[in-house]
């Protein structure tokens, strides 16, 4: 430790600390502009000037030093706002404010030292933070200084830029910033990505409530550099080398509940999702509505204003021969919920475009009646398309063209925002899951229950159960009911403790088996093994599932497929051919 005085007060400070850090630790404020603790100091702006007095050969010397890059020494006396310091700082502010008048800290200091603030300036104070950040931390080396003296200016090689935004966040004057090319305040396609940084906690109520790294956007994974998060984390919990590991578990029962996958409305170009502004999917609108969402729950257009008219389109991708014939069951009800929320949060007109309003559950119809009282407009007719304005009153709006079957006319309704209630599709990896767990899928691609009425949550494979939207589109009450049903079926199996194995399995007769081993690798359950000394193959009765494939292949008819033996089938053949 080193003992120094700051403004004539004694302090003990670590040896390697800079004057700036020592003062900050002591709670003394020193203005800085081009300083950032993650990057090498560039000592360009000069705001952090302090006066330093030291004993040298019996004489007290005073000098000015940029505190951001000078280290403390034994017996140093530091004065952070002596006249000499203020005078040098004033010159620095004058120089900087001329180039970047909008920077808050400069405007604040300008008032303090009553310096006039020019109307506009170039913005860049040549501090070089962006250069160092891009080189040291991001590792892309996009920025470079060119020219000397007056001509010294910043240049950028844009094709090396990976759009990580690190330079924009560090630029003290806001000269470098990230803009949406369409000047949108809310980019709704990013609504679902949540926070901007690559290391984030998925949501407030996330379980486990631990941050995760998104390798696609994280600079360390893209360029190998950065690593700030691991430097900052005191508990050193961040390990970039973490790889997926395979864990083997033994279970007696399996429940498949992979949920659903939302239909991507880009396939229905007529609704303009992805091309027209303010056309959102239902999940995007949910996140817009969410208090933890980007707008804190405010229903806003992309330009940040409140909508005056919102269209809710039912059956997008559902009840549609070209996409999904089935009804997704939940859209009508959450569309009504949206209508209510919009009415509650804005005074916008709300139009629901529906074919049939399916409010089948407990309290659902009453909810719909409540919506009618709140003045939501229900148009019975599937929307034909969302298109551009033609008439005067449609200027700047999205126009919803639909056939209103109750009125019997084609209508054009101008709205500011359209929410597409997209279909619920089977999960993307349903096919792989189905193959892995031996669960077949019905025509619409959802998992197939053993029996629609008598066994809705079990499958044709014993011990494998399904629940929730993966078995078919359903709302939360039904999903929870199915989950508990599946849990109870699993529990009854566990209570029983044992299960009777179907006896219709295959068996090898040793007297007939010649050890030809043709059956050995035919069994997907590895139930058949070969004993070299006995020169006989044998079937493990517990593993055998009774498919009979080995029995069909055995050239000496030594394998008996019980209950499906050769004699039984051959005699049935003779029987059915009477």
């Amino acid at each position, binding site marked *: 430790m080193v003992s120094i005085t700051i403004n004539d007060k004694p302090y003990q400070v670590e040896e390697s600390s800079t004057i700036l850090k020592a003062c900050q630790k002591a709670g003394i404020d020193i203005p800085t502009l081009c300083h950032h603790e993650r990057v090498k100091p560039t000592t360009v702006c000069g705001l952090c000037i302090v006066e330093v007095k030291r004993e040298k050969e019996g004489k007290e010397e005073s000098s000015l030093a940029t505190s951001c890059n000078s280290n403390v020494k034994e017996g140093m006396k530091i004065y952070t706002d002596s006249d000499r310091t203020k005078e040098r700082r004033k010159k620095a502010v004058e120089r900087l404010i001329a180039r970047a008048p909008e920077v808050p800290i400069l405007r604040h200091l300008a008032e303090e030292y009553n310096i006039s603030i020019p109307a506009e300036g170039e913005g860049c104070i040549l501090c070089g933070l962006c250069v160092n950040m891009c080189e040291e931390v991001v590792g892309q080396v996009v920025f470079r200084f060119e020219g000397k003296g007056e001509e010294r200016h910043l240049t950028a090689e844009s094709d090396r830029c990976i759009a990580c935004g690190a330079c924009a966040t560090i630029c003290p004057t806001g000269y470098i910033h990230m803009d949406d090319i369409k000047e949108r305040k809310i980019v709704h396609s990013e609504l679902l990505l949540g926070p901007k940084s690559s290391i984030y906690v998925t949501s407030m109520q996330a379980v486990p409530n631990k941050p995760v790294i998104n390798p696609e956007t994280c600079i360390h994974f893209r360029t190998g550099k950065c690593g700030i998060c691991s430097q900052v984390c005191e508990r050193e919990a961040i390990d970039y080398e973490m790889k997926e590991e395979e864990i083997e578990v033994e279970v007696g029962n399996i429940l498949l509940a992979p949920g659903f996958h939302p239909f991507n409305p880009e396939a229905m170009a007529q609704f303009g999702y992805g091309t027209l502004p303010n056309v959102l999917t239902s999940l995007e609108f949910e996140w817009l509505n969410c208090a933890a969402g980007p707008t804190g729950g405010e229903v806003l257009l992309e330009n940040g204003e409140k909508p005056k008219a919102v269209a809710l389109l039912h059956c997008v991708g559902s009840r549609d021969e070209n996409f999904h014939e089935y009804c997704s069951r939940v859209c009508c009800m959450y569309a009504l919920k949206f209508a209510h929320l919009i009415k509650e949060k804005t005074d916008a007109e709300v139009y629901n475009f529906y074919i049939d309003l399916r409010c089948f559950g407990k309290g659902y119809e009453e909810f719909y009646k409540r919506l009618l009282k709140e003045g939501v407009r229900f148009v019975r007719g599937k929307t034909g398309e969302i298109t551009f304005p033609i008439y005067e009153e449609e200027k700047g709006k999205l126009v919803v063209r639909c056939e209103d079957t109750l009125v019997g006319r084609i209508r054009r309704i101008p709205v500011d925002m359209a929410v597409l209630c997209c279909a619920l599709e089977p999960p993307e990896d349903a096919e792989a899951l*189905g*193959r892995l767990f*031996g669960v*077949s*899928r*019905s*025509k619409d691609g959802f998992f*197939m229950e053993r029996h629609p009425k008598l066994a809705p949550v079990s499958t*044709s*494979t014993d011990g494998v159960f399904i629940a929730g939207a993966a078995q078919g589109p359903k709302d939360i009450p039904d999903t929870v009911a199915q989950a508990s049903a599946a849990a109870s079926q699993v529990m009854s199996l566990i209570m029983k403790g044992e299960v009777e194995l179907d006896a*219709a399995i295959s068996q090898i007769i040793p007297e007939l088996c010649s050890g030809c081993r043709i059956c050995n690798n*035919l069994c*997907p*359950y590895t139930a058949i093994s070969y004993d070299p000394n006995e020169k006989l193959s044998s079937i493990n009765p517990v593993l055998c*599932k*009774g*498919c*009979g*494939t080995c*029995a*069909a*292949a055995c050239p000496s008819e030594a394998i008996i*497929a019980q209950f*499906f033996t*050769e004699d039984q*089938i*051959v005699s*049935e*053949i*003779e029987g*059915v*051919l009477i």
Partner: protein
Amino acid sequence: MSFEPKIVGFLCNWCSYAGADLAGTARIKYLPNVRPVRVMCSGRVEPSFVMKCFAAGADGVLITGCHPGDCHYHEGNYKTIRRYSLLKRVLEQFGVEDDRVRLEWVSASEGDRYAKVVDEFVKKVKALGPFNGTKLLVK
């Protein structure tokens, strides 16, 4: 009256038998010539069963199973494909027309497909006429 072919159909319990059940619950109408024999997997159907069917007076044999990859026992139907392709060559040498034996994949949800497969196959066998190849015509 006109020739009505007798056809033996091997249905795998998990897919095609369930598909035929679905055709039933959906009341889809199809021709009655196929007499189903239930097996646990199409992999259980031995080529010698097909020979036996013809020897016992069948005019056609239909083997059905799960689509490749969907087999309840994961790989049963792959063996069916292997045996079927070799059996077809042997049947050809025995003078059994190609259209008399057919392998079709029908999943548990394809009731309509099962009905279509049966109708198409019966028409084809009917066109070929009776099999009666086993009359030895020794003399």
